[in-house]
C-alpha cells in the first residue's frame, strides 16, 4: 500500500539462504486470487517453508520462531529470482515487512517491491554477513534504515553502509507517489511521441 518512507528502525527476520525464488515466497497455487488481498498473500508468505505437508507449523522455520520479528527481512543473495509474480511483493508487504535487505536482488522482483512500497536495500556481501552475524548473536539486534540519507546502520555496532536508489524513486517513496500517478500526467507527451513515429 502507498505509504510514506522516512526512517525505519526495527528488529529483523534473518533468512540466510541464497537464490530464494518467488515460487518459495508465494507458491503458484496461491496466485488464483482476483483481488489484491494482501492479508491473504501475507498469510501464505513462504507457505511451504512455514508449514509441513500435513498443515502443521514447521517450528524450525524462522517465521515461526518467536525470537525473531520486525519490519525488516534480511535474505541471502539473489533474492526474488524466477517468476515475475507481484504476489510475492504483496505477500512480503502483507506480512508486515517494509524493507528487504540482501546483497543482490532479481530485477523484476526488485521493481515489484518498489511498486508496493517495500524498500529493497542492496548492501555489500560483507555488510550482509555482519548483519547476519549480529542477529545470530542477538535476535533483538535493530537496524536503522534511513531513506533520506540512503543508509543502513546496525545500531549495536554503529556499523553503517550507504545504499543506492535513484532520485525519482526516492521522491516517490518519501511522498507516497506511484509510477501510474506519474504516467497519467504524461498523456500529451506520449501522443506527441506516437505522432512523431508515424
Amino acid at each position, binding site marked *: 500500500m502507498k505509504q510514506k518512507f522516512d526512517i525505519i528502525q526495527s528488529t529483523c527476520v534473518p533468512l540466510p539462504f541464497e537464490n530464494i525464488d518467488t515460487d*518459495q515466497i508465494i507458491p503458484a497455487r496461491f496466485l488464483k486470487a482476483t*483481488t489484491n488481498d494482501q492479508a491473504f498473500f501475507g498469510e501464505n508468505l513462504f507457505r*511451504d517453508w512455514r508449514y509441513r505437508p500435513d498443515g502443521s507449523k514447521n517450528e524450525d522455520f524462522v517465521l515461526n520462531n518467536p525470537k525473531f520479528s520486525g519490519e525488516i527481512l534480511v535474505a541471502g543473495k*539473489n533474492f526474488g529470482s524466477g517468476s515475475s509474480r507481484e504476489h510475492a511483493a504483496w505477500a512480503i508487504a502483507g506480512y508486515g515487512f517494509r524493507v528487504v535487505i540482501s546483497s543482490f536482488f532479481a530485477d523484476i522482483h526488485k*521493481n515489484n517491491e518498489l511498486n508496493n512500497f517495500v524498500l529493497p536495500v542492496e548492501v555489500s556481501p560483507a555488510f550482509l554477513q555482519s548483519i547476519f552475524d549480529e542477529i545470530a548473536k542477538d535476535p533483538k539486534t535493530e537496524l536503522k534504515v534511513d531513506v533520506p540519507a540512503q543508509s543502513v546502520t546496525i545500531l549495536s555496532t554503529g556499523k553503517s553502509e550507504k545504499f543506492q536508489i535513484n532520485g*525519482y524513486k526516492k521522491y516517490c517513496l518519501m511522498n507516497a507517489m506511484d*509510477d*501510474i500517478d506519474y504516467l497519467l500526467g504524461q498523456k500529451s507527451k*506520449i501522443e506527441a511521441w506516437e505522432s512523431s513515429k508515424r
Partner: protein
Amino acid sequence: MNTLFDKIWDAHVVNQIEDGPVQLYIDRLYCHEVTSPQAFDSMRARGIKCFRPEKIFCMPDHNTPTRNQDKPIEEPISKKQVDTLEANAKEFGLTHFGMMNDHNGVIHVVGPERGLSLPGMTIVCGDSHTSTHGAMGAVAFGIGTSEVEMVLASQCILQQKPKSMRISVEGKLGKGVTAKDVALYIMKEITTSGATGYFIEYSGSAIKSMSMEGRLTLCNLSIEMGARGGFIAPDETTFEYVKGREYAPKGEDWDRALAYWKTLKSGEDAVFDKEIVFKAEDIEPMITYGTNPGMGMGINSAIPMDTPEKSLNYMDFKAGEKLTGKKIDYVFLGACTNGRIEDFRAFASIAKGRHKAENVIAWLVPGSWMVYNQIKSEGLDKVLEEAGFEIRQPGCSACLAMNEDKIPSGKYSVSTSNRNFEGRQGPGSRTLLASPLTAAAAAVTGVITDPRTLL
C-alpha cells in the same frame, strides 16, 4: 554502445526522467488471467480506460485444464480467474482469445505464431517468460502487475535501462543437442544470477543456425540466467517465419517493415558491457539435478560434490552420484519453453516404434491449438498414440501446476519446462529439466537415459 539492444530501446524512449528511470513506449502488451486482475481492478478504482486497447491481447493459459476444455472449468477459483479475464477484456475493449478459441494457447507460443510479436518491437507481459519473444528480434521482458497497469493506462512503462551482454555460441551442435541443452549449459556456466541486470543478445554460428522454435526456447530461458530478456537479431530465418502470419504486415506494409527489420543488427563497432563465448562442441544433452535451473550437468555426469545439502535433501540425491539409469515417474512435454511443433517432432522421433514405459505417466501438452492442429496434420498424433502417448489440450499445465496437472509429492518428473524450484510442479514434486529428446528417452525407457543412445 551501438548494440541492437540500444537501437530498439532508444527508439522507444518517450522521456528520460532526471535521476530516474526511462519512460519506455510499449508496442505490445499480453495479459493472462493470473497477473492481470488486480491491474484491471486498480484501473477501475482510478476511473481510467485503456490508452491503446488495440495493442493489447489477452488469453487465459495458466489455469486452463488440458482435458475437456469444451466443458466449464471444474475448480471454481480457476474458473473465476479465467472468467474475470474475459470480463475485463470485454469491459476495457481488448482482444481476448478464450478457452476453445482456435487462437488460444500459452501466450508465449501464440504471440510469435500469430505474427503478433515482430522484430524491433517492445513487448511486455506480466510473466517472466516474456523473454521468449526476443527470438523475433524484439526487446521483450516480464513485468509485475503494477507495471501491467502502467501499460494499460499509458502504453508506457518506467524502467531503468539494463546493461547489455553478448553470449556467443560458436560451432556446430552435436547430435541430440538442442536449444534447451544450450540454455541449460549457459545457466550452469554463469548461474541463475549471472545475467541479472543485463539484456542478452545471443549470437554466433550455433545460434544463427537454430530454427525459430529453437531460438524461442533459448530466449525463453534468458530469465533463468537472471536476465530481463534475451534476443537474437532478426535474419532470413526470422523473416521467413514471420511472412504470411495472421497479424504480420502484408503487401506494401511488409516491404516497408522488412526494409526496417534488415537494419536491426548490432554495429560492427558495438560495445557490450559484458561478452561471453562458448563452444558448441562442449555442450552435451543436459539434465538438472537440483532446485534451480542453474543446477544442471551433462546427462552422463555425476552430481557435483559442492551441491547444497538443502537441494540434495529435497531431491533425495547424493553428491557424486550419476542420474542415468535412475527410475522416474512422470514426463512432461510442453510449456512456453518446449511446447512447439519442433518439440513434438523431436519427442516423436524417439517414441516412434517404441512404447511408453509402464512406470511412467506422460503428459504431452501442445503450446497452442495451432500446434495441436499441426501435430494432427503431420500425423504425429498417430505415431505417439501407437507408442502409448496421449496428446492433451493446450495450456501451461504441469509447468507450474496451476491446473489439475500436478506432480505428486516425492515423485520424479523429467520435464521440458523451465523451472525446477521446490514445489514448482506441485507441492513436494521433484523436477529434472531436460530437452524434449531427453524427456522422450526417459518416457520410453522409464529411467534417465542419454537420448543419443536412441537416435
